[in-house]
């Protein structure tokens, strides 16, 4: 996992609510057995007419060259639905490192954190202010100080993240390293239950 600290970037707004993992990546693209290459199928059915890459839907935001960046900003309850980690992989593979929303579904949030994608939960009102910004506006996410700033207005909000996960993201550690270091405790736990 790539360490992550400060991300300053323009953002892609996707103000719909309840964006589910079937929209992020439809099930028919889950047949791969590696973690790479899912970005091209991110929001597949919203991006293309009739599943045809030569006919992009012009009104969909990812097909609008005016919008780009490492930050995706979405409506509340982002990532509801299936546990498919392919959703987080496709977001990362497409080039996003941060998803901003006013509310995240549980499993998606864990999956994002386990892949070095920061789920930044902001208030509903702050989300509205972000979505009103022009396409050239940049956001700065400072993981160390747990803040998100709209750079052109300097409006700022703090976000929550567990201190353990924050340490992991800042250093690029994953949970397995930690769990493996607990082998002795786990064996003792098993022993005690018998």
């Amino acid at each position, binding site marked *: 996992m790539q360490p992550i600290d400060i991300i300053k970037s323009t953002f892609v707004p996707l103000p*719909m*609510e*309840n964006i*589910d993992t*079937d*929209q992020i990546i*439809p*099930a*028919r693209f*889950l*047949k*791969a*057995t*590696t*973690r790479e290459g899912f970005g091209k199928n991110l929001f597949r*059915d919203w991006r293309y007419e*009739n*599943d045809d890459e030569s006919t992009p839907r012009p009104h969909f935001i990812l097909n609008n060259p005016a919008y780009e960046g490492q930050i995706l900003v979405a*409506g*509340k*309850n982002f990532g*509801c*639905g*299936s*546990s*498919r*980690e392919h959703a*987080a992989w496709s977001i990362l593979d497409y080039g996003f490192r941060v998803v901003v929303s006013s*509310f995240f*579904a*549980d*499993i998606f949030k*864990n*999956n994002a954190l*386990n*892949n070095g994608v920061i789920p930044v939960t902001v208030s509903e009102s702050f989300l509205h202010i972000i979505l009103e910004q022009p396409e050239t506006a940049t956001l700065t996410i400072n993981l160390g100080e747990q803040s998100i700033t709209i750079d052109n207005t300097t409006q700022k909000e703090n976000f929550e993240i*567990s*201190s*353990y*996960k924050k340490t992991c993201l800042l250093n690029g550690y*994953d*949970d*397995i390293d*930690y*769990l*493996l270091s*607990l*082998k002795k*405790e*786990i064996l003792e*736990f*098993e022993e005690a239950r018998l």
Partner: protein
Amino acid sequence: MPKTLFEKIWDKHVVKTMEDGPSVLYIDKHLIHEVTSPQAFKGIENRGLKVFRPQQVVATADHNVPTLNQHLPIKDELSRLQVQQLTENCKKHDIVLYGLGHPFQGIVHVIGPELGITQPGMTIVCGDSHTSTHGAFGSIAFGIGTSEVEMVFASQCLLQSKPKLMRINIEGTLDKGIVSKDIILYIIAQITTGGATGYAVEFAGSAIRDLSMEARMTICNMSIEMGARCGLIAPDEKTFEYIKGRQFAPSLQQWDKKLGEWKELYSDESAAFDKELTILAGAIEPMITYGTNPGLGISVNGHIPVTDTIMDEGERRNIVKALEYMGLKSGNSLLGMPVQHVFIGSCTNSRIEDLRLVASVVKGKRKSDHVEVMIVPGSQQVAAQVKAEGLDRIFEAAGFTIRQAGCSACLGMNEDKIPAGEYCISTSNRNFEGRQGAGARTLLASPLTAAAAALTGVVSDVREFIQ
């Protein structure tokens, strides 16, 4: 100190708790399937590790398998490779696999309970969000991502923050024609798809006690559709009776000891919940969804909300967009609307009891000519039971197609898909855009409501078909 059911199980599985951080939670059973496991196997192999506790892992192939001619090689190359990789990985890591052709193969959340693998008091995980199903036995069961599958492979543990606790009491008796699927669709319509996010939800109350184990599974199965980390129901005599004698149930020698432990699994009288709500069973009618998330449901004889009157802008935009996708109109009723497909299957409603319900409505009758009806039993064992009880003859006489076990048209990963623009009444769990195939329009309902639509070819009130 009084404890909730959830806390009793949780506390017994905490290996260690980090200060200001998650707990290390020990996992009793890890169920895996072909779609969300290959990257996890690769992950531990890249670290030079073997699966730590292979005897606590059970594998099956379900998401991506064909439901026709399962004895032949899988035609779709990618699907074949995925299933083949599962077989190789299980062999390499000494994991029991109930693959295609095995009499125990089936949807992972159907076979766990039917084989007696799922037991009260356990922690159970699987790389699938509907793992919440197993909570019907009084276990903590939840869906995980592939990185977490890898963690469990490596250490039989997961890092988890303790969720908040909610209890939903369903009191009273259900009217005729109303089943557990209607209860859960009703609850999700009340509290929305994010209404239980961050919570473990215990379902309780007299209406829950009255339900069979299979009906309870349907409720816990869909607790993820309101965002819950897991759903659970305290075990009782019905639970113990269900488990007794199953393949992997505790042996006779162990039974009394286990039973003693299981009988302690209930929420103490004064245990505290962060949130509690009560629902009257008598208020529930047959439910059906009109939108593109499971929370957009109404009673079958109700009306779609009038979008102009919805105050919240986000919600209004959502429903307008959903109705556009569904080709439906604000304020309209769904009764009498033609459907082209009926899908009876999925981890929500593909158990023998669900199929008995369908048979009770369609026995001696024939489906409408305008509708294709597909029945996909949840497992090989369910399929065998269908035959043993002669339900297959009822379904065949009705003009239904019976397929082999798998997830099938619930998620449109194999070739069982609903064509774009067509309507499907489905006993599955998700009506998301494109879920059953690009452009497919899904109406979620109970097996009874699906059976009624199969006969009429239109959205119907099943109460007119039963005495």
